[in-house]
């Protein structure tokens, strides 16, 4: 019988360690000039260097170093005056040299932190996540596992390798052990990854798309009995491909560890894989026999010694921190905490901001992105940002509403049509013949028809029963097929019945 989460946290305190890998958005690879475009045909973006051909040599992409320093600075790290690359030696077919060019005891950035806030039942809570290091390395190729039943590695007959991804610059951001989250550990982890993603996006160093693997999170989890000093054995969960999964994977691991500990079994130090479908993890390779990576300084690359001037130059170009920016926006827009959190959660803050920048008022911009558009995104199970509707579209729609050329109802039709890819706002209005009916005479004719059809109701309104007018207004709206402005209909109707 599976334990309940409440039972786990009543007895155990979790410790977390998060390793986030980020593919940098450089034009070329880490050590060679191959393109980094996502989704290119297999093995079309490879060369002697990233294929690890005999004789080929790496040369560091200077932009990748600048990006890494920017990340370090944004995470409040110290930037090492001297750091080196090292070879991490292990065999794997997706790694062309059978060593990964990485950093070992001399990373570029060390000792930083990132502050996060989570919403709890007891209100907002702040946490400081300490960063141990930020270092550079290179990505591996991709394997397709063929034959067998599942398409997974187990049971495959053979594999096909594509090295387009091999050598794409990766930055690994490693936290120190995170303690003291208690029951909020899963939320803290999710908030950390989310905040980190916003920071990275703000820096413009990566497209941070978890679903495409340009941001990947490995979550280390261990439990110890509340009050005990000794850390428990940790497991490391990989394949965590969305923010929601970060939270789910940690929760699932906490429950699994607690079940083992409660039945006096050992937690094995191992790599585990998270499965989106079941929400559970399965065992990967056991790390009991720790792999001996035989690190040594990479002789083919010379050390990195960034000048104070370079660091200062990068520091001067850092954008505002997302937390600061959010606070500013919240004040400017006069939004309550809960609404703000909702926008962040739905990942529409950037879109709302862009819409406001294009002239829309904050309240309308927010309600569109958080309402109708978020609803459709949810239905389609995609991010609002990935829908075929831009901030400019929404700003245009809002402007038309303000001018009285669209009603809310008509605007919803336009928004739907935009998302369906039916063209620009103007084209959609034209093609669908969407037009606010504001011509008084045609409205008056409709009002007359409504009154004629329900004279008793009209009488009530004349007698001062204003709420009764709703039925008449509804009839007029129906008559105009929703194209009339309801407020205007009400005005005219009440005036006509002597209540204006």
């Amino acid at each position, binding site marked *: 019988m599976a334990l309940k989460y409440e039972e786990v946290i009543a007895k155990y305190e979790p410790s977390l360690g998060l390793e986030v890998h980020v593919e940098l958005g450089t034009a070329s690879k880490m050590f060679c000039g191959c393109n980094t475009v996502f989704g290119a045909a297999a093995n079309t973006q490879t*060369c*002697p260097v990233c*294929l*690890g*051909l*005999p*004789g*080929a*040599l*790496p*040369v*560091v992409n200077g932009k990748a170093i600048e990006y890494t320093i920017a990340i370090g600075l944004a995470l409040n790290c110290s930037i090492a005056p001297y750091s080196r690359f090292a*070879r991490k*030696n292990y*065999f794997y*077919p997706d790694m*062309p*040299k*059978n*060593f990964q060019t990485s950093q070992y005891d001399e990373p570029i950035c060390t000792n930083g932190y990132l502050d996060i806030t989570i919403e709890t039942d007891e209100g907002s809570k702040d946490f400081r996540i300490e960063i141990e290091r930020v270092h550079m390395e290179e990505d591996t190729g991709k394997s397709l596992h063929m034959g067998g039943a599942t398409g997974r590695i187990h049971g495959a007959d053979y*594999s096909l*390798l594509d090295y387009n991804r091999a050598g794409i610059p990766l930055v690994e951001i490693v936290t120190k052990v995170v303690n003291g989250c208690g029951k909020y550990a899963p939320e803290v982890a999710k908030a950390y990854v989310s905040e980190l993603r916003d920071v990275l996006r703000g820096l413009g160093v990566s497209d941070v798309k978890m679903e495409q693997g340009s941001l990947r999170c490995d979550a280390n989890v261990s439990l110890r009995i509340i009050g005990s000093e000794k850390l428990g054995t940790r497991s490391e969960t990989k394949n965590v491909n969305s923010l929601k999964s970060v939270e789910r994977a940690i929760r699932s691991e906490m429950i699994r560890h607690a079940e083992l500990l409660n039945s006096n079994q050992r937690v094995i130090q191992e790599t585990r894989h998270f499965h989106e479908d079941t929400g559970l993890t399965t065992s990967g390779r056991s790390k009991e026999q720790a792999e*001996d990576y*035989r*690190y*040594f300084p990479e*002789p*083919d*690359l*010379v050390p990195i010694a960034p000048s104070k001037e370079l660091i200062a130059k990068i520091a001067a170009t850092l954008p505002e921190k997302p937390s600061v920016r959010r606070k500013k926006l919240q004040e400017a827009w006069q939004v309550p905490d809960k609404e703000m959190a909702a926008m962040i959660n739905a990942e529409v803050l950037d879109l709302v901001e862009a819409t406001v920048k294009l002239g829309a008022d904050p309240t309308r911009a927010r309600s569109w992105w958080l309402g109708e558009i978020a609803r459709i995104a949810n239905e389609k199970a995609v991010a609002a940002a990935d829908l075929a509707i831009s901030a400019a579209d929404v700003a245009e729609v809002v402007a038309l509403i303000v001018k009285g050329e669209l009603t809310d109802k008509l605007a919803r039709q336009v928004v739907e049509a935009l998302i369906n890819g039916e063209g620009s706002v103007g084209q959609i209005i034209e093609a669908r013949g969407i037009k606010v009916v504001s011509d008084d005479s045609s409205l008056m004719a409709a009002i007359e028809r409504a009154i004629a059809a329900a004279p008793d109701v009209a009488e009530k309104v004349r007698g001062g029963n204003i709420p009764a007018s709703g039925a008449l207004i509804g009839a007029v709206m129906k008559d105009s097929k929703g194209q009339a402005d309801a407020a205007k209909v009400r005005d005219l109707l009440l005036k006509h019945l002597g209540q204006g």
Partner: protein
Amino acid sequence: MINKSAVEMAESLSKGEITSVELTKAHLNQINEVDGQVHAFLHVDTQGALDQASQVDAKRSAGEKMPALAGVPLALKDVLVQKGIPTTCGSKMLEGWRPPYDSTVVRKLKENGIVILGKTNMDEFAMGSSTENSAYGPTKNPWDLTRIPGGSGGGSSASLASFQAPLAIGTDTGGSIRQPAAVTGTVGVKPTYGAVSRYGLVAFSSSLDQAGPCARTVLDAAYLHEAIAGHDPLDSTSINAQVPAVVAAAKDGNVKGMKIGVIKELQGDGYQAGVLKLFNESLEILASLGAEIVEVSCKYFDYALAAYYLIAPSECSSNLARFDAMRYGIRSGQGSAEEVMNSTRQIGFGREVKRRIILGTYALSSGYYDAYYGSAQKVRTLISRDFESAFKLADVLVSPTAPTTAFKIGEKSNDPIAMYLNDIATIPTNLAGIGGMSLPSGLAAEDGLPAGFQIMAPAMKDDLMYKVGAALEAELNTKWQGPILNSAPKLGAK
């Protein structure tokens, strides 16, 4: 014609006395004549060489200004990749592999119109001092076919000594250019680390490997040096500075007033008497030319061999990891990828390569790193400091290149330590990254075989070696009444 120097051949070409095609054919004929006995080449690119030669001839007759060595043939050590041409590194592992790209050295050779005849034999992945570790059989020393031609670049040195090529490219990690030069009576230069691009040089030990020129005269080597040296943005460890004027230095050849330091630790025990005698005679010649001979001590050189045999295997254990049967090279065995890797590496690598990979794996493994690899890197610092101090007392340093003349094939193949001792005098320069040259000092009295004289210069002052080498060579040639290779036995037609 094939017995002439490369510079003389280049002159004949530029005067129109001979075409590159004729010159190339003459060498291809010589290869046909003698390489059955010597086995210097692993691959002869007859068609490619002739095509290249006729292109040079066409350009020349069209009146284009040609680089100094345009049209002169060359033998390329099989550790440098050449697009489309089999590159094996003397290993079964790469049998049949044709690289899809050119090394920077090859690109520069082609740009200079130098005709590449083919790829020369070597110890597998450049690990060895005798060329006996080639998976394709040993190369024989043209002076005595029962003896080794040195290694790892025995194919390149033997091709020069048997007039199959006037120029060759070698690579030197612990002496693989200089020791073969010494035992074959030829000239070999390891430039300062970073002077010649390593891009496309299949790595043995990345922090020690350096490609360089092999020739029969110091001036020929200088011309080839200038053709292949220079900054390469594809090699992060490439020196971004002007190449020293080595041709001018070789033409100058004036040692008057120079201080020449004799390294106390690189003579005495373990050095063959005849080799030392020739070394001392060379010193006398240099003194007679106005150089001042001083003795210097480099006390940490005693530790150089030990440091080298930790650093080189460690780096090679990582560099050779890529040979895994997945992307290129041979594939052998059944089962999983891991099983196929294991069995391919078992049959693809020879004994010495496996020995060094295992040794390097040990030296880098956790718990042993500090004691072995870490300590070796510290010794490297001490050796560099020794050189720095010595270069305060002398402009160049000298020693015998190798402790002995060529030994018999098979003589040391079961005693790795005895084999490693061949490199005792050449290894310190690799550890410090400075340049070293070997040129013939004469024939040892005991066995009538050639010995080498080594000149070492501070980093990026490779010109000094050429200056001293050219001075000594001129005097020795006068004494011998011609180049030493004139006394080598005639091969071929029997």
